[in-house]
């Protein structure tokens, strides 16, 4: 059972297993263990970003492609739901339509980008995707009639998912629409994460690894690398789109800053590399660590910064807004010294 669920790809480290189980339990029971809006927001964000980062890892860690268009697909998911709900009203039909359209659009764009530019070298692909993503961002802010421009779209969800809808009480916690939304996000992300785990442990995933390790030799063995890369690109795009859809459902909002911005692309890179490239579990650790740091490290840094108030420059280095600086340093150290990130470190220790 467990073997099938995890596609025979176990954490292979006791410490890692403990951490993963802890994260899973914490996320699964978040509404009951950590009541409160802020912590539930953090939990939902972790779930969404685990999926987003795992789908990016399929590209970066398993196939060895650097794409900067991942937030674009994230955004397509968000805007697909957002536009459908805002224009057609809060019904399940609109939600389904938005989801379907977003997935189809992502698939078509990923296919086009893949076929046109995955034949060339990694650097070229990275540059092209950066340009395409920038173009998409401009497009989203310019078509303000459709997308709400810089303000984004706020929309209402179907009756069942609204915070006001109270179903019943469970262990003293009110089971309301917010909770139902949370579990849609959680189980959606979990299911897709397991699906991605299945993909990377399939024969297809093994070919991707061989392409990453030695492109020339894989081709000599008879694998069409462009096809494999394009399929990987499409799967990753679909994963990101679903993440975008779930995030939009959770936030009841879609806008450039929550989905499309280049900062999110940088966040994803940080999560993948710090968690561990080429290990799906790395995305769980990376995303959890990052979102927690984003929300709680600042409080710690504020304490440290206030403590050092009199010194020159040091308080600035520890200013709460500079938390990204330290994650950036960690990122660089990871790329140099432990390219398989935290997961690789834990596995090496056993």
């Amino acid at each position, binding site marked *: 059972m467990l073997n099938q669920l995890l596609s025979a790809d176990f954490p292979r480290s006791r410490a890692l297993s403990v951490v993963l189980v802890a994260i899973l339990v914490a996320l699964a029971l978040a509404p009951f263990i950590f009541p409160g809006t802020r912590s539930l927001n953090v939990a939902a964000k972790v779930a969404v970003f685990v999926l987003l980062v795992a789908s990016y890892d399929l590209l970066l860690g398993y196939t060895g492609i650097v794409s900067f268009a991942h937030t674009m697909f994230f955004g397509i998911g968000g805007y697909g739901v957002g536009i459908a709900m805002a224009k057609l009203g809060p019904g399940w039909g609109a939600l389904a339509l938005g989801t379907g359209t977003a997935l189809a659009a992502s698939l078509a764009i990923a296919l086009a980008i893949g076929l046109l530019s995955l034949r060339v070298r990694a*650097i070229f692909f990275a540059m092209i995707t950066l340009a395409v993503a920038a173009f998409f961002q401009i497009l989203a802010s310019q078509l303000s009639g459709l997308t709400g421009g810089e303000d984004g779209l706020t929309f209402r969800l179907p009756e069942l998912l609204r915070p006001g809808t109270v179903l019943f009480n469970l262990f003293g916690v009110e089971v309301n629409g917010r909770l139902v939304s949370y579990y849609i996000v959680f189980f959606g992300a979990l299911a897709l994460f397991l699906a991605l785990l299945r993909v990377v442990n399939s024969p297809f995933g093994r070919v991707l690894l061989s392409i990453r390790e030695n492109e020339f030799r894989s081709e000599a063995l008879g694998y069409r690398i462009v096809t494999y890369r394009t399929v990987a690109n499409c799967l990753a795009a679909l994963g990101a789109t679903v993440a975008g859809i779930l995030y939009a459902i959770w936030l009841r909002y879609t806008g450039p800053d929550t989905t499309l911005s280049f900062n999110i692309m940088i966040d994803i890179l940080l999560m993948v590399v710090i968690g561990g490239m080429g290990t799906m579990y790395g995305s769980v650790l990376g995303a959890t660590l990052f979102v927690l740091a984003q929300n709680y490290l600042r409080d710690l840094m504020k304490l440290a910064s206030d403590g050092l108030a009199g010194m020159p420059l040091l308080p600035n280095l520890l200013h709460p807004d500079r938390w990204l600086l330290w994650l950036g340093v960690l990122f660089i150290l990871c*790329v140099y010294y432990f390219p398989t990130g935290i997961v690789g470190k834990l596995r090496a220790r056993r």
Partner: protein
Amino acid sequence: MTMQAAAPDANRIIARIAVDWIPLALVPVLALAALPLVGSAPTWVTLTVAGLAMGMMIFMMASGLTLVFGLMDVMNFAHGIFISVGAYGAATVLTRMRPQMEAGSLAADLSAMIPAVLAAIALAGLLGWFFERVLIRPVYGDHLKQILITMGGLIVFEQLIHVVWGADMIPLPRPSAITGAFILGEAAIERYRVLAVIVGLAVFAAMWLLLNRTRIGLLVRAGVENPEMVESLGYRIRRLFVGVFVAGSGLAGLGGAMWAMYQEQVTAQMGMQVLVVIFIVVIIGGLGSVGGCFVGAMLVGLMANYTGYLAPKLALGSNILLMVLILLWRPRGLYAIGKA
């Protein structure tokens, strides 16, 4: 002895054969094609000057990137940081020179701007040296890691800019004598744009002379074609790498300073914002080609200004369209270089 005497001659002949005029002709063709679309001649002149000025600034920022790629096979995704740092360097000097900037005479303005620009170049060059030494050197030859490492450098140094100069935007007023416009015929031409064109042309000319008429330039060009061969002839290609990287960063700093004065403000993100356009220019020109980069920058600058006037919503889209069209025509860019 005879070899050395013969080399420049052969060089000149090869250069003459190899010049490919078609991409170069695209610039005036694009400008003339826009004339009937824009309609009025004075507007067209204004737009063209603006486009050329923008192109020159983009060229300054992009040339280092393309040269570094050509020589070292390194695509620096943190190139935008050099632009930002140059801009901050210039802003730091300029804000201390208020009196000279408000004096109103060109000489006083220049006495403020020249140190500012020199500071920008020095600061960006220094940062470039650090980048090459510490960050990029361990990952030569590994593209994936290069992209990741330079992205990491981008994150860290963007944050460090915030640490040193603060997180807020710094307004940067232009010196008084080069603000405003003068009237030529019926067209209003901003003074600063003319200055940008002059500086850009000077940089291009200096680069062209350095690359084509000096021994160092010869080595750099040879290194772009075949680095192992240059090394086997006894030259230390590493030193060449460092030199080109520092020079490229310095140029980006200069471009950043000019760009900041053009925008009249400085932010840490400005480099990253221009980077997309720079990538488009570098791809259009052919990775590694300085001449292609120049032509590409002019095309992009003109295109952005014409479409900005004709169809404002399409401004950035037009550059992507331009890139797609050019790649359909020449898949490796206007002037393809050996290994790209």
